[in-house]
């Protein structure tokens, strides 16, 4: 759940970032991580999963602030009104799920979320880790090239994880990650492309991201519209009462 918040904060890029020369892969990735990020956000997200000649499309509205986040499904009609609320109090995370047909809110414990790097975001080809942006911990970095206004950085896993290697393509001027390749051994598992960016509140945010899953031969598109950042969201939004509201 917190992933939507992380998505908006980590994948963004401030327009004020100055072009600067970095000597190593680690320096580039640290610079990417250290960009300013919004304190809160609201957005309408369309998630489209395609495989073969079939497509599943879902639209949801998200609210993120601090450690709290909420999503509510707007479409398709059969899941409209369903929602998930993620909160954290005293270091303990809690997820509550509301299903309108049963008019029931259920709490899920953290263990239900599974390993965020293994679990996918609502059946899409994005894992929660993919959406969380580039990792720093558990990886060593190498700057493969820096030419034509673009850095290519390779991240190699130093401990067991879902990917052995990642290769990032980063715009030097904006420090935006435009493409990420995910490898297991020598096999290219997935490719993420940020196909479109947008300017919101002084931040450069990804508008559309496409994840191609080469192994599963499927593709997921994550698009966000009606994005607002750094707006104060009332605490009442992150409550069971608001979760139940249609």
């Amino acid at each position, binding site marked *: 759940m917190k992933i939507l918040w992380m998505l908006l904060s980590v994948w963004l890029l401030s327009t004020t970032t100055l072009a600067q020369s970095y000597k190593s892969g680690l320096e580039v990735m640290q610079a990417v991580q250290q960009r300013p990020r919004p304190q809160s956000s609201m957005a309408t997200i369309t998630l489209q999963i395609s495989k073969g000649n079939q497509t599943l499309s879902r639209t949801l509205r998200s609210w993120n602030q601090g450690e709290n986040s909420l999503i509510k499904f707007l479409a398709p009609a059969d899941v409209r009104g369903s929602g998930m609320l993620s909160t954290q109090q005293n270091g303990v995370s809690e997820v509550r799920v509301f299903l*309108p047909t049963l008019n029931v809110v*259920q*709490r899920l414990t953290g263990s239900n979320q599974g390993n965020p790097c293994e679990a*996918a975001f609502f*059946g899409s080809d994005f894992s929660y880790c993919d959406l969380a942006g580039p990792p720093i911990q558990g990886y060593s970095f190498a700057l493969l090239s820096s030419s034509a206004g673009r850095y290519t950085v390779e991240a190699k896993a130093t401990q067991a994880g879902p990917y052995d290697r990642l290769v990032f393509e980063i715009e030097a001027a904006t420090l935006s990650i435009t493409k990420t390749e995910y490898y297991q051994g020598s096999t290219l598992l997935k490719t993420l492309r940020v196909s479109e960016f947008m300017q919101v509140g002084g931040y450069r945010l990804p508008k559309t991201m496409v994840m191609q899953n080469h*192994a599963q031969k499927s593709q997921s598109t994550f698009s966000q519209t009606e994005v607002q950042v750094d707006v104060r969201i009332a605490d009442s939004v992150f409550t069971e009462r608001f979760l139940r509201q249609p």
Partner: protein
Amino acid sequence: MTAWINWVIKHSLWVVVGFVLLTALLMTGASRIQLSSDSSVFQPDHHPLVSINQEIRQNFGSSENVIVLLGGDIFAPNTLQQLQTLNQRLEELPNTQRVTSLANLARLEQTEGQIVSRVMLGTPPTASQIAELRSYLQQQSSPLVSADGRYAVLIAEMRAGANPQSFGQAVADTVRKSWSGEVHMAGAPFIIAEVNRTIVNDLQVIGAVALGLILLFLFLNFGRLHGMLLPLVQVFFGLNLGLGLYGFTGAPAGQLTTIGIIAVLAVGSSFALHLLGRFYSELAQGRNKTQALVATFSHTAQGVVISALAIVVAMMTLWFSDIGQLRDVGTLIALGVAGTLASALVLLPALLNLLPAPKIKPQVPNAPVTGGLNRFLLGLARWVFAHRTATFGIAGVLVVFGLIGASRIEANTSFLSFFPKDSPTVKSIQKVDQVFGGSGSLALLLEGDVLQPQALAAMQRFATRAKNEIPGVGQAVSIADTVQTVNALFSGQRQLPQSREQAAQALLVYQSSVSSADLTRQLSLNQQQTLLTLPIPLRNTQETRRYYQQAQSLANEVFAGVLTVKVGGDSLSGLALEDALIHDFILSLSLAILLVVLVDSLVRSFRAAVITISSLLMTIVLQYGLLGWLGIDLDISTMLLGALAIGVGDYAIHLTVRYLEELKRGRTAQTALEQTLLTSGRSIVFTALTLGAGFAALSFSQLQPVASLGQLMVFTVLSVGVSSLSLLPAMSLQFLRPAKAAVPLNPQEEGL
């Protein structure tokens, strides 16, 4: 042919150099051949079951599992700890998607208003955790442990797109290293790994055995190193030429490649056998090396060319097969035989010309026939001449015997039939089937509004009735189970949702953290298709067909008016293969007969072609009769028997070629026959023995169909030999006349 041999004699050195260089160049193609033992290579291109399976794979992905059965006192703390270690090691394998066993079994429960997913065993497991696990498993009737607690089941699921062979091998190695007790395995990656291991072993062992036996019979025939080594050189270059060309086609090596290579080895050496036999015979008659070469290649080469073309066209008929691997093996043998023919007609005469002529004992005209074999052949020729009607009668009786046997043939194309019935692999799979309730599965592709309550209820009704009404099947799994489990956590009642929306929302919770592969494992993205899986034991195709028909019938009844249903599943690939095989068998055999008659008619005469093929057909009828009488299954390998016999057995052609040649030279029918049997007959005996020895090597294969094919091909080439020396001479006497007026022989030549 005479002009050709004269040209080769004139440019022998350059011919050898050019041929060796060309072969070396083309041999680079052989390095492109990849080993592939994927079961999909046996799937026909066009079959309703294959289309259903493709639709299932496209919409639901393919789930390849290795099912591991682990023996021991499963609920003992140290056994469970060993299981936890194994579970973890398998999870760490690079191509593992997930591992499911008691070690990571999670209990989904509702406690104090929360839904909790809790792994039941800690590390190390405590007595209370084990007691709770036992009690939970009894309530759930989980397939992860046998009822008596003596076997645990572990399922290792392969990551999509990974190589099943290397995954199966890695799982098998890890399990054997990590588990001290009894181990049994099943599942496609495991079987593929076993088949692959066997192919590699077969190619090394059988190739060496076949080569050794062929060389032995060549030495027994000619009694000299010259006659043994030259065919070896000829076959080596010819085979490599063929393999190189095969590599350039991009086709892989598979389960049937061993058969192809042995067939080329055996057939290729038979070319040299006939040519060298004639060459030595000409030298024995006092001709010098050049004269002997011209005589050999002007007369005997015709038979070799027709024989080779017959094999090539017989194998090319496999191109019309719907099964990729049969097309590939047809291509391999056709190219290999073409390569060995080229080597026999180009390299062999050039080498014979360059090497010093071997010392041959001169043949004295009118000298009495010596040697046991020669005396037998002469006696046989005289018996056939005197008893041709009796020969036809015996042949007729054998044909009837063969036809009755052929009517008893049963097909079995199960992947399991690749292994001997008492092999460790089969026993392992059977044990898994027995404890787990079926390592194979049927997949019911259900279409319609699958989330409607009545559709979900029908799925559960089908699962219950299948378990009760189809003996041997396991517990069916469907999306209804998932929906019911999640719905129960929210509603507090273990029941199916009351509306479509309720089902969709329950699924949304399930889908909140699963991957796209998990999402589409049971339900298509458009939610109009779902997959119901029914475990069935992996048996022969007849039993699988029975399960298929029973499941189809039950599904038609249960889902009538609710959902449309198509029954598929990888376990049914064998049925599709069986149907295609019968079609291919009839097509390839008929085409092979027609094409061989056509080729022979163009080179010689229609009458000679029909007579030669008739003799062959009798042996093919006998061959399939034997298959039926001995209860050997018709499978992917034994199906090849007919086309192989037509091609390989066409050495009978040499007999009619020689008989007509002798008639043309003015001999009477009786002396022509006697001379034919003493010359070509002798070559036919050794060709049959050499080919038989080559195919006998296949009997050492650990792949059951290859071994059966080897045994039957030995019978075939030997019976073609017997038929060529008895029935064919009788038919030749009855129906063959020289096309041109005979040139009278001088009295000295007439005698034997």
